[in-house]
């Protein structure tokens, strides 16, 4: 990527902690990064990221307080939701019965857990997908490991372009139009994560 076309990534500041690791991951890929809660900055970025640490209630409340829900819904540039950020692209979440952004149909549910299945789902798990399922996964091989940390999940459906299994089948990657989501943390998924983020930066 030449300097002249270096992507400008806007990370939406949800008021929740830990957008730093996402910012550093994009900086390692030589992208220009801004963390913002200003609609004008988000709208002028080449790529937008909804990061994901915190609770669904707090995240949506902060987005509403900053008047950002419509701004995000109207985006036409590539937009990537990570972890909670991906979950809130769906219609609603069981976590605090929260109305989410509704970019994808579906409901975020609590992970059921069970014998030998710990909740949170925390650690490195394998991705299952059909090769060439999404531009986001180019260069990633099915059965590659990615780092997951979450207690709520989106059940696998036709919308999922990659899944992982932890007692239940979980949507790991989702995409439709310009909206993309990863349940795992690409910024903490070593080489696999860097590949996903590089693919995202190459979308226009």
């Amino acid at each position, binding site marked *: 990527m030449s300097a002249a076309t270096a992507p400008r990534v806007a990370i939406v500041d949800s008021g929740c902690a830990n957008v730093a690791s996402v910012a550093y991951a994009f900086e390692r890929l030589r992208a220009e990064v801004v963390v913002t809660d200003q609609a004008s900055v988000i709208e002028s970025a080449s790529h937008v990221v909804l990061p994901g640490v915190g609770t669904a209630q707090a995240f949506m409340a902060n987005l509403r307080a900053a008047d950002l829900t419509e701004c995000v819904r109207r985006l036409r540039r590539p937009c990537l939701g990570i972890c909670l950020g991906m979950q809130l692209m769906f219609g609603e979440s069981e976590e605090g019965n929260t109305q989410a952004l509704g970019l994808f149909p579906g409901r975020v549910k609590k992970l059921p857990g069970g014998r030998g299945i710990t909740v949170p789902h*925390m650690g490195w*798990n394998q991705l299952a997908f059909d090769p060439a399922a999404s531009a986001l996964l180019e260069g990633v091989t099915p059965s590659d490991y990615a780092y997951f940390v979450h*207690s709520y999940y989106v059940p696998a459906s036709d919308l999922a372009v990659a899944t992982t299994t932890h007692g239940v089948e979980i949507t790991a990657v989702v995409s439709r139009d310009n909206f993309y989501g990863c349940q795992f943390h690409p910024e903490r998924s070593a080489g696999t994560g860097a590949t996903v983020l590089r693919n995202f930066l190459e979308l226009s």
Partner: protein
Amino acid sequence: MLAKRIIPCLDVRDGVVVKGVRFRDHQVVGDIVELARRYRDEGCDELVFYDITASSEQRMVSRDWVENVARILDVPFCVAGGIRSVEDASAVLQRGAEKISINSPALERPGLVSDLADRFGTQCVVVGIDSMVEDGALRVYQYTGDAEKSAWSGRDTLEWAREAVRRGAGEIVLNCMNRDGVKRGYDIEQLTAMREAVDVPLIASGGAGELHHFRDVFTHARVDGALAASVFHRQEIHVNELKRYLSECGIEVRP
């Protein structure tokens, strides 16, 4: 299926990585960022940084190195040491740590676990437990970073773990103090009891010396991760070599 995690632990004191035997006589083993980079390149699944002086000296972990580590690491890391409030935790998480681990402050005020879980989600909140086998009981010790102050907290290990999980701990690190630094293997019996007691991810700590110690703790105690320090710092075991060995033993690890 979730891969078993290999977690080098870097005990930090005054901005450098140190290691002592049985929590005492600390020696400097290296620079924080240099060691973090080496473990990243060897394929560690996660790193834990413990500021072992922080709780007992009542000061917050110095935060600058957290940011330096976050800039170079592309695997998760957890910061422990002297996190006494939501504000302390927020400062560490904002610098790029994935998780915060609390130990003595949670014993002083168990409500801290719930406060952190409410604010950041349970997946961010690790409770570290320093456990000593004494008189046939499992006892939680506190202020273990300081030989002068290290003492029984009055709590039972399994009871405390259950309470921590009820309050919102998303992971338990069980450090078996009798085994720490002596390299005779993890305390399988104690870890198995803990595995039965809690449903959240469980990380074994204390006692790793040989490759087969890791195999045994994953096979018999069914822990989610194994933490070790000196065998990695002294390069007696390399993370990549350990993972190849575990894979040959039929244990799922990330290549």
